[in-house]
């Protein structure tokens, strides 16, 4: 569909997607059940025009491709069409270094992070941080291209590999390896409030906890401290619907990631909380304002 070309019969609330996964289907069903007319739009056929804004009040961006979602948010927000997530939130939360900077600025505890821009200085940063260190791409998800580096020989090899990759991978984002239980916490935030949280356990033989790579989920009670750090993290990126990832480290919570287009199948399944319905209720309240 070309937005702007055929404006009839369009709801003024769009859900923009690349693929309809469990989450998108649940959102569409929740909107229907809650009486919110929704217009699912595939990004693959979308044309957005600067001289002919789409007749939309609002778009829920659910693109699985980060850059596609980011750029759709950019043009829609530029045309004064509000989105969840906003371009600001997608831009900041979608880049691990930008997110770390926002968390620091807002006083949210986060793992110690060193940044370097060449293989040599990255090696020095790793030595200074102390092995093992975790190297992450500044943009990436589902644990992809994250390396746990245990010694300088491995570090040198990985940094050299990175030097032949796209420049974004040559931003060497190094973090302390935080000793923690074999789990982390995902807290779903809607409208700045924690709605549900799960423990995500590492799959067997892996140190990463992403459910996308086979991690197991269990419900997690949201205590005051967890709520407080999740709220501050969400505020740091002006999040309206985000997933805050938190590590438990020696009795303290550390935020290590904020996801601006969160998946929530595992959270719904583990907690029984209808995240999709909560998102739609929030959007209905937002549209009434």
């Amino acid at each position: 569909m070309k937005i702007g070309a055929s404006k009839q019969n369009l709801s003024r609330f769009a859900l923009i997607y690349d693929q309809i996964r469990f989450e998108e289907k649940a959102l569409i069903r929740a909107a229907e059940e809650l009486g919110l007319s929704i217009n699912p739009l595939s990004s693959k056929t979308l044309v957005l025009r600067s001289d002919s804004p789409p007749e939309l009040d609002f778009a829920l961006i659910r693109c699985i491709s980060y850059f596609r979602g980011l750029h759709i948010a950019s043009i829609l927000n530029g045309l004064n069409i509000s989105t969840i997530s906003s371009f600001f939130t997608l831009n900041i939360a979608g880049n691990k270094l930008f997110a770390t900077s926002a968390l620091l600025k807002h006083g949210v505890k986060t793992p110690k992070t060193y940044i370097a821009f060449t293989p040599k200085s990255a090696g020095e940063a790793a030595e200074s941080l102390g092995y093992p260190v975790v190297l992450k791409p500044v943009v990436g998800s589902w644990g992809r291209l994250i390396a746990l580096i245990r010694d300088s020989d491995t570090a040198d090899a990985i940094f050299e590999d990175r030097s032949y990759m796209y420049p974004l991978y040559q931003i060497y984002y190094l973090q302390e390896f935080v000793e923690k239980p074999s789990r982390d916490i995902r807290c779903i935030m809607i409208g700045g409030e924690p709605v549900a949280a799960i423990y995500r356990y590492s799959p067997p033989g892996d140190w990463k906890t992403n459910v996308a790579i086979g991690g197991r989920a269990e419900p997690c009670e949201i205590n005051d401290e967890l709520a407080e750090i999740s709220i501050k993290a969400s505020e740091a990126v002006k999040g309206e619907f985000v997933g805050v990832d938190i590590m438990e480290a020696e009795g303290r919570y550390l935020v290590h990631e904020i996801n601006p287009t969160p998946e929530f199948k595992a959270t719904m399944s583990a907690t029984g909380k209808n995240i999709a319905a909560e998102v739609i209720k929030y959007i209905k309240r937002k549209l009434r304002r």
Partner: protein
Amino acid sequence: MPSCPVCGAEVEVPIDVVEGEILVCEECGAELEVIFEDESVVLAVAELKGEDWGE
């Protein structure tokens, strides 16, 4: 019912199917993307994971 482009088996489509929905072929396990073509459903092999895919 539309057929799987990988193994040819018929694939059941939910009544409330949406374009872009991912279905799994029960015969061969292929992940298939729903495409609406001339008011009927056809299936294509779903795109492999992209470099920037995620949350």
